[in-house]
């Protein structure tokens, strides 16, 4: 059966693009518009991979990522971050958050700056689902 991949992004264009990429590469895409909906779907459907945007209204990708990694049932789902935020800024924010919360959250499986190139993204997806 095709592996389920969850795409979380507030932008319609980005969701259509990534879900099409997944569908045409033999995966079963699921999509959500923000972190809150993303967590609900992740809990219900247990996807094999999550592709996550950082800056979203309502619940951001940062929170969703930490919640995923703190949930014993979901923390092993690999996450690819796709964001307009630069890689450096993202990793710095993770470090600072780790310090204040006194926890150590694992790094995402991959980090891609927007706009993602189809080949690059697909390669990371395949790497994660090998």
């Amino acid at each position, binding site marked *: 059966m095709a592996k389920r991949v969850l795409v979380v992004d507030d932008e319609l264009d980005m969701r259509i693009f990534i879900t099409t*990429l997944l569908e045409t590469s033999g995966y079963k895409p699921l999509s959500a518009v923000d972190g809150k909906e993303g967590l609900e779907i992740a809990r219900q459907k247990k996807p094999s991979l999550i592709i996550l945007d950082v800056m979203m*209204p309502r619940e951001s990708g940062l929170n969703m990522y930490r919640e995923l990694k703190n949930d014993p049932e979901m923390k092993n789902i690999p996450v690819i971050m796709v964001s307009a935020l630069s890689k450096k800024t993202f990793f710095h924010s993770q470090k600072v*958050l780790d310090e204040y919360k006194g926890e150590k959250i694992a790094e995402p499986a991959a980090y891609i700056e927007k706009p993602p190139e189809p080949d690059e993204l697909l390669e990371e997806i395949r790497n994660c689902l090998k």
Partner: protein
Amino acid sequence: MTQKILLVDDEEGIRKVLDISLSDSGFKVFTAETGKEALDIFRKMRPPIVLTDIKMPGMDGIELLQKIKQESPDTEVIMITGHGDMELAIRSLKFDATDFITKPINDDALEIALKRANEKITLKTRLREHTENLEQLVREKTKKLVEAERLAAVGQTVAGLAHAIKNITGGLTGGTFVLEKGLQLKNEKYLREGWDMLKGNVDRLKNMALDLLNYAKERAPDYHLCDPNRPAREVIDLMIPRARENDVSLEIESDESLPKVWLDPEGIHRCLLNLVTNAIDACINVDCTQRQGKVVLRILKTEGWAVEFQVVDNGCGMDEETKEKIFRRFFSTKGSRGTGLGLMITKKIIDEHEGAIEFDSEKGKGTRFIIRLPEKDQSTSI
């Protein structure tokens, strides 16, 4: 030597508590209630460390951070953020804040942040001593600094532009990909979706180019004697499909008895298009509005002016911070979908008409923009 520190927070209680705890730790503490006051004190006292709240009325912490970093990049700025302001805190890191600490302020966290800032300062000082021995180098460095400052202004504009273009290219790349898959697999759904993505992003590009051209042009309006209802009707016709798609009702209340007015029809078209687009976007924003979205474009005569246009929506409205910034270039609340050019250009066009633009808005209730154009007689407008 006691070290100076500037503490900025609009809440008196926080200022008091932090003042005591910082003074105990051996700092000479200066306090400011607003961003503006902080900047004045900063310029006089030049403290190496600034501790500022992010959310403040008027100039907020992020703006203060940018101003301080512009004048004195070596100053370490630590941001104080409320619970749940993580996005703001991250934005501040982008502008080179040293660190951020969250409210309620934990003494250990504060100590760690201050220690880190001090380490950075020591490091920078040592580095500077090292380099400054070489007089030649200093001279070059100074020259470069002046140059850098001049370039910074240009750089900011270019960076804003590059960001807007990058967003659109992202949409185009995605659209091309989806469309190609549609062609390859003869899949109707992909074809349609890809095509819509391309069309939407080409429109965004076109609009941005138009906005930029308008921005760049220093020009007098190209006055014609026009029926003021006309540009309004054109904009409504253009925007009806988009409003319908998003389940927003779009209405025009024109006044056919209005006499003709001297105006630049293209410029006014652009202004109304920008305002109506914003109004529809405000109604779509699912965050804050559950009611049926409604946008009305009204054309009427007001005392003392040739014509007045009103664009009224019942969408998400603006908070005080947003209201202050809406006419600035590259300020946008639409995330990657906005360029931050629309309102700035609208204001520019109205200024060129010697008209007036104003608005009132309430968070969660809606927004009303008003444009007024002055009487012009033919002799002054040829």
